[in-house]
């Protein structure tokens, strides 16, 4: 049993090792994406700093600082969750582009192990990027984390990662079945989640039907909980109302996403979609 588990960990690690090797070879592109992440996060932070000038409203430094942190928590948490979401679909799309998807799918690796390995690789990358972006942004914009409850924030991030893994597995079905435009379909799903999850604003400003969608997005709870933890120092008891819905979404989305992927794999094998032509 233990031997079998360690064998599965070994198999899953193959995907982590592969991603690390690819990141080394594509280091210049990684740098480009890091700069892109820093620039977009900084742009959001400067919108916060400029809010009094734009609106002609309150220029109290404490209020402005809180608003900047409000926006930064949203953008960086979204960057972390978004990377998890994107990376799964992009890896499938990449394998289709390189033509390696057939080798990967005919290897004696249980699909669950394969996907867990991809998720682990994705988490490593998302965590590295998010920490680097936060550190870079802090060099330009004063970030007041004096009230932050870091432990609560980490618990929320871990929960959000789990919840997003299910969504990411489900969405990677698009590039699996549609080589040319599948990834763009996954991006549309991601954009809808961004719109309804209160990344830059409270969900209460949304129309009623969008608020209904925000209820099923795990990002809604994770981002709200992260704000409570990092702006107001909320402890575990206070983040629980945002934690349990994210856990429920994760508990539902992972098996559903996995089932969807397995169905898509069977469909692809029935219709010959694992190969583009011939």
């Amino acid at each position: 049993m233990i031997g079998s588990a360690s064998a599965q960990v070994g198999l899953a690690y193959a995907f982590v090792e592969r991603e690390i090797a690819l990141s080394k070879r594509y280091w210049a592109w990684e740098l480009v994406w890091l700069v892109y992440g820093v620039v977009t996060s900084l742009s959001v932070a400067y919108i916060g700093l400029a809010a009094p000038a734009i609106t002609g409203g309150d220029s109290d430094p404490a209020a402005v600082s809180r608003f900047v942190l409000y926006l930064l928590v949203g953008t960086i948490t979204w960057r972390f969750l978004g990377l998890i979401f994107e990376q799964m679909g992009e890896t499938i799309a990449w394998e289709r582009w390189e033509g390696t998807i057939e080798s990967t799918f005919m290897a004696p690796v249980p699909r669950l192990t394969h996907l867990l390995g991809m998720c682990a690789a994705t988490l490593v990358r998302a965590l590295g990027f998010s920490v680097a972006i936060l550190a870079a942004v802090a060099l330009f914009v004063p970030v007041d984390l004096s009230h932050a409850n870091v432990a609560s924030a980490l618990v929320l991030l871990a929960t959000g990662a789990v919840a997003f893994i299910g969504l990411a597995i489900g969405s990677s079905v698009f590039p699996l079945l549609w080589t040319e435009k599948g990834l763009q379909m996954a991006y549309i799903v991601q954009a809808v989640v961004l719109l309804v999850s209160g990344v830059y604003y409270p969900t209460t400003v949304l129309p009623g039907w969008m608020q209904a969608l925000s209820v099923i997005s795990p990002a809604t709870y994770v981002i709200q909980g992260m704000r409570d933890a990092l702006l107001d120092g909320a402890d575990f008891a206070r983040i629980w109302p945002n934690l349990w819905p994210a856990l429920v979404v994760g508990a539902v989305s992972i098996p559903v996403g996995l089932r969807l992927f397995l169905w898509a794999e069977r469909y692809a094998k029935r219709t010959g979609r694992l190969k583009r032509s011939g």
Partner: protein
Amino acid sequence: MAIQVRERKRTEKKTAALSASQVRKAFRPARVVPGGGTTVRAVDDVSLSVWRGEIYGLLGANGSGKSTLIRLFSTLLTPDAGEVRIFGLDIDRDELAVKRLINRVSVEASFFKKLSAMENLVYAGRLYGVSPDDSRPKIVSILHRLGIEDARMTEPLEKLSRGMQQKVAIARAFLSTPMLLLLDEPTTGLDIRSKREVQTFVRDLRDEHDATILLTTHDLDEAARLADRIGILHRGRLVAEGTPEELAARHGGGTLEDVFMTLTGRRLDDADATDAERST
């Protein structure tokens, strides 16, 4: 090209490494307009057995269904009808166990092209449960036998020639020491020297490692040179099967090319050209 009569090592009792029974596979075209397009029957009622330790050559023109058949045997496609067994295991019900016994080389060498041969092969080894400590010396040994020098092993694969990439693909398949190796036109596009090196390696693989090999080709010389038995595939159907000598005896003698022409009504080169024109 005369058919060579060769002595083959024959086992006392034949064990089926692969048995396919009445396998069918058709593809429907994308529905651009309602009811548009015709269903293509890629594999039509094919039954064949490949015995353990045998090199079985599947000969056919472009579009005859060779690659589809290899994909069906590789678990990458599911048949519409029929049954496929690998060493007695059902390819659908025992998929994971079957995957441990097989490997495949496709006509296109597909890799992470920015990674080196060594990185790609270490990754491939891990997928088959071979640790890097065990795989690295094995990789070096296999690549040496295939004529790839040490310095080329750590270069990104995109910098290697098509022939070298195909050799790395063969090394990847061999790394997992498969019981059944499926080679889908492994020498297509290679120069004469590389072709010979690969053919020698394939035969050594069978002789030294008790591997069973199913090889598809549209190269008559290669089929005659390597295969113990040959199956001729024409428009998705297996129209003849036997040793080169048996095929010649059954179908009017002469060369393998004469046999192909008798069975399909076309020369293999003409069939390829016609199919190429049809697909453009």
